[in-house]
């Protein structure tokens, strides 16, 4: 798609293909920010801070990982926030059952919404952004209808463990995040699925002619995105011990997309960088934490955030 000059630029990555530059630029930026904090922010240099940070970004990162796959196929999913709301509400209906039914049931219900997204996008051919936008609007509405807009508080220890518990002082959500990221990374790197996703994002026609079931892969990708969003929804809900259909996951889709792109995956599709995405999310979170811990007004954080997003991506591209 890019103009010819860019084609040439991109070809420069060839040497670095195995370790893409993105994977290098991000950690550097992050390390710099950390060092900055260690000096500037009091009590920053503590293991607890790390867990807080990872806890803070765990939901965004989970959503972003799903988003990475969607974007890699050349699509986009704006409905993840709404799906989180649906997950939150669904789980409250399953409070009476045991934790496994609660989790699996919620994930399943949300997967159906992903299925709906994917089906309409790949089988009917509606453009992803507009389909998922509609779902973003409708989905949250549905969640609110189910709770009459009220916020449903509950107390359910085993459920609350998902978001609040910790193993060996590592918050459980962080463990979930690591597990998910690792799995998806391995899948992308070593399975046919990963290659199909990349091929579809790069040249859908060729992929189709090579006997790849493009429609099914796309369907799966939107399902995965929905399931991961649901997982994030469960974590968030259990942390609050309350399902807040209206507020949960608000604007998370934008943070997630930012994380994905900062992570090095191209919006136009192609190779997905899972760890890049995780790092992208960490960067975002780190910025937020820096501001909160230094009590800098939210408004300024917006500006700096914008600059850092552009800066990070610009340097990646420049090194391509």
């Amino acid at each position, binding site marked *: 798609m890019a103009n*010819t*000059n860019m084609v040439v630029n*991109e070809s420069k990555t060839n040497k670095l293909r195995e370790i893409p530059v993105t994977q290098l630029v991000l950690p550097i930026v992050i390390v710099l920010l950390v060092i900055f904090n260690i000096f500037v922010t009091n009590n920053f240099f503590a293991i607890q801070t790390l867990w807080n940070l990872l806890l803070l970004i765990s939901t965004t990162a989970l959503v972003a990982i799903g988003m990475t796959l969607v974007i890699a196929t050349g699509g986009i999913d704006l409905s993840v926030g709404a799906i989180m709301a649906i997950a939150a509400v669904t789980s409250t209906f399953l409070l009476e059952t045991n934790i496994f039914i609660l989790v699996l049931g919620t994930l399943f219900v949300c997967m159906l919404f992903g299925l709906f997204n994917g089906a309409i996008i790949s089988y009917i051919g509606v453009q992803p952004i507009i389909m998922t936008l509609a779902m973003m609007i409708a989905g949250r509405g549905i969640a609110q209808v189910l709770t009459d807009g009220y916020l449903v508080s509950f107390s359910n220890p085993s459920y609350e463990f998902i978001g609040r518990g910790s193993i060996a002082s590592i918050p459980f959500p962080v463990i979930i995040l690591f597990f998910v990221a690792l799995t998806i990374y391995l899948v992308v790197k070593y399975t*046919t699925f990963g290659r199909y996703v*990349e091929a579809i994002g*790069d*040249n859908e026609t*060729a992929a189709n002619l090579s*006997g790849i079931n493009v429609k099914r892969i796309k369907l799966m990708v939107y399902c995965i995105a929905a399931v991961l969003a649901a997982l994030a929804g469960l974590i968030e809900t259990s942390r609050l011990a309350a399902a807040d259909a209206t507020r949960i996951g608000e604007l998370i889709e934008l943070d997630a997309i930012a994380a994905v792109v900062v992570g090095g995956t191209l919006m136009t599709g192609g190779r997905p960088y899972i760890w890049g995405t995780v790092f992208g999310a960490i960067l975002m979170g780190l910025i937020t934490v820096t501001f909160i811990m230094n009590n800098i007004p939210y408004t300024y954080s917006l500006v700096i955030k914008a600059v850092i997003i552009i800066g990070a991506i610009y340097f990646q591209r420049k090194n391509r």
Partner: protein
Amino acid sequence: MADKPILKMDGIIKTFPGVRALKGVSFEVRKGEIHALMGENGAGKSTLIKILTGVYQKNGGTIYFDDNEVDFKTPIEAQQGGISTIYQEVSLIPYLTVTENVLLGREPKAKWGNIDWKKAHEEAKETLKSMGIDIDVKKAVSDYNTAIQQMVSIARAVSMKAKLVIMDEPTSSLDDNEVEVLFRVMRQLQSEGIAIVFVSHRLDEIYQMCDRITVLRDGDFIGTWDIEELNQQKLIAQMIGKSETEVKALSGMKQVNDKSNEDVVIKLEGVRRGKKVQDISFTLHRGEVLGLAGLLGSGRSEVAKVIAGIDGKDEGKLEFNGGEINLSSPKQAIQKGIAICTENRKTEGIVPNMSVRENITLACLPQISKFGFVSRKKQNEIVDLYIKKMGIKTPSPEQKIKNLSGGNQQKVLLARWLALHPTLLILDEPTRGIDVGAKSEIHSLIDQLSKDGLSLLMISSEFDELIQNTDRIIVLRDGVRVGELNGDERTQDNIMSVIANEGDNDEIEGVL
């Protein structure tokens, strides 16, 4: 006067990561001559052209055009400088009208600075008429077939009133009729004193049109000759850097063998699909090479697409290995053992940003993976095998395929399909834009494969290529089967007459 150079390029150097595309090339074109730029795939022809016209920036060397040193930074500058170019990859704007595609960038203005549509349409219509093409210029260019589209981009280039017109493989997607039209146009330009740089892998065209030849090899400048100095053998020898005797071995007719008593691999009965496939029936036997001949737009590709499950058929019967099949996707066809190498390499073939390795194994991944996990070992085996077997020129299997030259991309795609070990392989224009060396390699490959019992269906707009490589030829016209030629009946004239005899053929929209 005629000997005065219009263009002089000296010691042009261009390097891409991992590739030194041009290593100090010199190139000189005189006013009013038609100059052939020759070389194998990847020799650097297109790169040289792109540097001259400001698409790429050179790493070294000097360019004189019309007696001034120039260094165009963008294609626009080159155009304004008096160089108009038909780039190798046909590229038009699909949903703009023919008129707009011809005049894009220099639309006639009315007094408010708005476009004078009336004038524009007339101008475009005239230009195309002068090339013997009479079509509705108000329709979107995407409404016409590739042949017309190629003529439109040619019309665009010649109508620019340039001092130098560059044509990078303009004939690769044309058939004899249009090629004739193009040649008329070229002679016209020449008579106006306009110089032309002409790139083609069809040697007969070169000898028919050109005054001088410049040969590149692996980015090196080999030399420039007057056409008389260099016969085909010599030329090929220079291009591939082998002695003439070796070259002689290259050419050579494949001996025809009658496979009609072998068991039938695929059988079409009254197959119809849309307007472009009307009632097609034929059989293809094991180990047979069947040719589909016809003019552009005759529906050969569409027939192929039906057999390969890309397009579903509206009517008719399709039998494969004796059993009736109904394909609704390429996947099914592939699973059955039917593979197709389509005519549109760039858009239907390569996955540009993936490596040569991934591109070769893309279709056969299921075979080399367990529970969806790909065996890197098996993958590398296959890749190494085919890179060697087909002589694919690439710095490494990890190179992005988009950085390979056209010919090498084509070989990678062939490898992709052969790795599937299919029963039936459909080749739609398999040697389009491929150099003589690679071409004969592919030809002997086809021969070898058929000997190994693979059945092939071959589509080519070059009739002599069909004649050279097939056992039997089916002739299509307007999506209808109009004849079959066996053994020695398979001659240029016979094919043309079969097409012609079926009434006057003005079906290729507007080409007279």
